[in-house]
């Protein structure tokens, strides 16, 4: 055993050197964005991110101040909208998806396998193909340019359903039976007994859904019509137009939009990771 670790030393060191270089390469774009955000946006759009713009110079641009005032105070509105949407999306999607996933995982009934396969199938169909009729649907439902219009298509997330199902399968039947003996109906059992047992699943899915909502771009782009409904993603995108000159807002705004998720990630890493893992293993 000791012989093995000694022999592996050189190759292992080389491996970690390679990984370190890769890590630096991967971090570089985010690092350069943060540093560049202190520089005047116009220079960045003209000459790009240069090595000169990487020198920390925290006072040459007043981008962060402009975030609050620029474009008649649009940025805080975008931020508020994104926060609200992420919150509601998480609550509703988790509520419905856990409900469905639990049902699929805990009960033996005839349609079970067919429905599970349907969930998997839906997971794979990309939203982009459905945008046209979905758009017409939203128009008919009078939900264009409203929060429900943005939230609805994502309320039942097949990914989350599948995840909750996998988790629910592992709930010991005894707990459920105990609840039944106590006189609880199935839905009460779900709420009072099973849901608390699935807390890690809720944690993982909450993170995943919130992140997806925060970064959602295509659907809000289609649904949102007025400036006061813009989310961060489409708001920042609107700054990329050459007909305005709010590049200060764009760069600093990109940072402020991304940093919260990165911070959340560092605290709740294991939830991110476990959220993705379930889909992969069973294949």
């Amino acid at each position, binding site marked *: 055993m000791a012989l093995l670790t000694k022999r592996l030393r050189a190759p292992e060191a080389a*491996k*970690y050197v390679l*990984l370190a270089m890769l890590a630096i390469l*991967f*971090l570089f*774009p985010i690092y*350069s*964005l943060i540093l*560049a955000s202190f520089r005047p946006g116009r220079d*960045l759009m003209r*000459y*790009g*991110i*240069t*090595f000169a713009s*990487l020198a920390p110079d925290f006072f040459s641009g007043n981008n962060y101040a402009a975030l609050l005032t620029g474009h008649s105070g649009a940025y805080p509105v975008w931020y508020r909208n994104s926060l609200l949407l992420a919150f509601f999306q998480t609550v509703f999607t988790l509520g*419905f998806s856990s*409900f*469905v996933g639990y*049902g*699929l995982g805990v*009960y033996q*009934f005839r*349609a079970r396998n067919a429905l599970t396969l*349907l969930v998997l199938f839906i997971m*794979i*169909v*990309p939203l*982009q*193909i459905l*945008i*046209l*009729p*979905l758009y017409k*649907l939203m128009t008919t439902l009078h939900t264009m340019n409203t929060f429900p219009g943005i939230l609805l298509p994502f*309320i039942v997330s097949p990914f989350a359903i599948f995840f909750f199902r996998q988790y629910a399968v592992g709930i010991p039947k005894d707990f459920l039976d105990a609840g039944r003996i106590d*006189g609880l*109906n*199935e839905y009460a059992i*779900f709420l009072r007994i099973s849901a608390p047992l699935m807390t890690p699943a809720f944690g993982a899915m909450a993170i995943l859904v919130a992140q997806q909502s*925060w*970064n959602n*771009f*295509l659907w809000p782009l289609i649904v949102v019509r007025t400036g006061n409904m813009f989310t961060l*993603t489409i708001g*920042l*995108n609107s700054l*990329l137009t050459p007909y305005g000159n709010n590049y200060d807002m764009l*760069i600093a705004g*990109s940072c402020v939009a991304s940093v919260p*998720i*990165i911070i959340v*990630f560092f605290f709740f*890493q294991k939830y991110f*990771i476990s959220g*993705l*893992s379930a889909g*992969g293993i*069973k*294949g």
Partner: protein
Amino acid sequence: MKQSLFQSSMRRAPYVFVLPFIISVLVFYLYPIIATIVMSFQDVVPGETRFIGTANYQKMFSEDFSKALGNSFKYTAFTILILIPVPVILAVMLNTHRRRTNAAYRAVLFLPSLVSVVVAGTIFRLMFAYSPRAVINAVIVALGGRATDWVLGGAAQAMFLMVMIAVWRWTGVNIVYFLSGLQSIPSELYEAADMDGARPLRRLFSITLPLLKPTIIFVTTISIFGGFAMFEESFIFWQGQSPNNVGLTMVGLIYKKGFQTGSMGLASAIGIVLMVVIFIVSVIALRSFGFFKRES
């Protein structure tokens, strides 16, 4: 009495639980797919919607269409070629006993996927700017080359940009998938192999890869779907207006025809064709993985 009430409640319960799913599938998936099929045979203008048979399908095949299809194919191929083998190797590298170090690297490589596509696209546009002082061009110039216009310089440069941003964003995610697949491989198998004196490369090909197959199949499938459905990355770089359509993808074409020129019928037809293409490619891929064979 109570018993039968419970029993009937228990029997009904699963259907109640899955009801929201059924409804949402009907409303948000089945209805749109059927509506798309129907619209693909129509011509949709304000005030009038009329059936025009297969005219949309015939009109569809133009230079734009072949560009879009070609770009989507190339993009999917390149991303799979890079984003499967490399993360597998990296996952294997990170699957050793040094838990904390490995977790740190995994976290760093995962970070790019957290950033929205708008932010990622903005960063890449700025890094890959035409100016010789922009970081990528500065390095190239320092190595003796010439500054390139990555965004507007040509089809190869455009494809390179799109693939690069995908590699940056999804490597970490694929590593996580593969790591979880690796961790479900029983360690006894490796120990047995070590006992037999197997070298690392042999282990990789005889044990790891075969047992990782389900995960590889899964990741490949979602990569095919993701590759053909790619739209946002291209939109961020060119806002849907790439010169000579170097950045045009199938979904980009649907968006263009549907929302820009208002030809919803034609766009729907393109959507149907895209679904068929994805289906065919996936089946071919799965076939070559032996997915449909009955294994012992």
